[in-house]
């Protein structure tokens, strides 16, 4: 069966006055119909570049230097701009972080939705208009006819992001990439948008890639998870396995460094020392090793993404749980830390 999206060893390079900089390294993953893949990482981890590389939306000085991106069996990287445009905005769409700057300020919401509909579905104006109204209704905007004629700056942040999603849904896409769709929004609005995305996935059966830095959102939304650090995938697993048995020291550290409402107030955060390396593309070994408490000399060797085992010699039943850490793969890491992730107090129920 062909996967909905199959990304193989993606490598993206940016050129500047100082030469070339490879910011993505061997990024591979798959996603199936109806699945939500969460990509989590900090700024600069390469998660947004991954999305833009797939969409063919890299800035002028960026290019995919290696790899294949099969979308419904077709290598998107082999298509020319015209052929790609038949897929983009149609079967494969994207929602961006800042809806205000991502919507064109001089066109109405209606015309921005209809543009996609007319380009791909070739509907006459009136039908396109009706479809657009339906989309606005579908994303939960009340009074869609009024919104059709509204300019982006007259809408609230939440309404703009819903309008962005309506644009992305214009042609019933098979895969929607949402790049930090709620980072600029308040928590109560974020919850609304997340609920909307979850509902859309259930109703339409589309695949969804959710890119975020918020591990909490991953737990809420994702079926499978990709953890990225410094341009590499460092861990990949289904969501339950990841939270039960986080394998990579970075994943573990991240979970311990972020306060959550589940925590007992007595738990002290365990910060990750240091900063994300600036010129990680020249690092040969594990890119996290300078900040890692389990680092040994062998970590300076190149690390492959391999199956994780709980204890030495014992493989987990889940072969899909991959980790880019030779110590984790060899079962050398203590498992005790995962205990710390258990909620100390029951979830709040007012």
């Amino acid at each position: 069966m062909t996967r909905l999206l199959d990304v193989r060893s993606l490598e993206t390079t940016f050129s500047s006055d100082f030469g070339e900089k490879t910011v993505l390294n061997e990024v591979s993953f798959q996603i199936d119909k109806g699945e939500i893949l969460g990509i989590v990482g900090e700024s600069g981890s390469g998660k947004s570049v991954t999305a833009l590389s797939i969409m063919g939306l890299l800035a002028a000085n960026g290019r995919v230097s290696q790899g294949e991106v099969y979308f419904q069996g077709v290598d998107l990287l082999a298509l020319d701009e015209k052929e790609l445009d038949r897929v983009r905005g149609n079967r494969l769409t994207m929602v961006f972080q800042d809806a205000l700057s991502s919507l064109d300020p001089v066109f109405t919401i209606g015309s921005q939705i209809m543009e996609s509909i007319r380009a791909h579905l070739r509907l006459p104006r009136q039908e396109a208009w009706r479809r657009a109204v339906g989309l606005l209704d579908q994303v939960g905007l009340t009074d869609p006819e009024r919104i059709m004629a509204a300019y982006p700056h007259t809408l609230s942040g939440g309404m703009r992001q819903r309008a962005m999603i309506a644009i992305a849904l214009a042609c019933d896409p098979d895969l929607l990439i949402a790049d930090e769709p709620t980072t600029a929004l308040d928590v109560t609005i974020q919850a609304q948008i997340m609920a909307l995305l979850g509902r859309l996935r259930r109703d339409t059966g589309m695949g969804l890639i959710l890119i975020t830095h918020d591990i909490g959102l991953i737990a809420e939304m994702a079926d499978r998870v990709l953890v990225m650090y410094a341009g590499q995938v460092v861990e990949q697993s289904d969501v339950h396995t990841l939270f039960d048995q986080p394998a990579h020291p970075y994943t573990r550290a991240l979970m311990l460094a972020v306060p959550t409402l589940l925590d007992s107030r007595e738990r002290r955060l365990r910060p990750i020392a240091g900063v994300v390396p600036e010129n990680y593309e020249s690092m040969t070994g594990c890119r996290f090793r300078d900040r890692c408490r389990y680092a040994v000399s062998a970590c300076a060797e190149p690390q492959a993404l391999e199956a994780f085992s709980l204890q030495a010699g014992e493989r987990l039943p889940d072969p899909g749980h991959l980790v880019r850490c030779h110590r984790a793969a060899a079962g050398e890491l203590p498992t005790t830390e995962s205990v710390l992730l258990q909620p100390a107090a029951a979830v709040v129920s007012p």
Partner: protein
Amino acid sequence: MTKYILKRILIAIPVLIGITLVDYLIMSMAGSPLDMMRGPRVSQAAIDARAIQLGLDQPWVVQYFVWLRQLLRGNLGYSIRGHEAVLAMIGRSIGPTLLLMGTSLAITLLIAIPVGIYSAVHQYSIGDYAAVTLSFVGSSIPGFFLALVLIYIFTVRLGWLPSSDMVTRGAEGGALDLIRHMVMPVTVLVFSSVGSNIRYIRSAVLEILQQDYMRTARAKGIGRFLVIYKHGLRNALLPIVTVIGMQIPTLFGGAVIVEQVFAWPGLGLMTMSAILQRDYPVIMGIALLSAVVVLVANLITDVLYAVVNPAITYE
């Protein structure tokens, strides 16, 4: 919309009053109009009588208001030299100047907009590099020097084009004759303003191209053409409108030199001869007129800007 225009006009009022004040101040600094009367055959008594008649014995504030009242009635005074009404002189000269300015503005924009957009869309290409470099060189050439070179080449050496006036005297030239007379002055005006316009539009479009909404447009798969020529151009209208507004005062000033060099019978030539002859009422009339033109141009620009930018509400 009407309210918006009204508000803009109201805001312009203090500036307009300031302009008349400056205008009046400069005029009185230039000396009493009676200085021109002085001579061996004019008695002091006659001058004094004339001063009382003209209200020059009043405090300057009163004089200013008297002058202002005349102004509001459309009386800009009379030329000291020709004793002709300044308003009539302006009326006679404004046509040729508008013709020259309008043509130059149109041609400048016809060149600058496509070149600026091309340059931005093809940033760092050879074409872009050439456009930017040439635009710098172009705006570094003094207009009058270019005019001299053009006259030297096309009038003196080749004898193709006439170098002065609007029409050939004594000949029934018609439109073609007029165009032949316009070629060089228009070229000079276009040359001096097209460079900065290209750079302005280029950087405005570059900024637009980097906007997030352009990426959204690309993500929709509507094709490169629509992305650039629909979303890009529509947003570029804002800076383009601004550019047009900025042109008017520049061209008004530039016309003085060009009209002088090519003896083009417009406001500029009139200004220059008034300046050389110290004909202050004429100078002041023109200064006032051009300030009002600039204000009106700014107003129109703002209104147009509001029309093309939905983020500006008129209320």
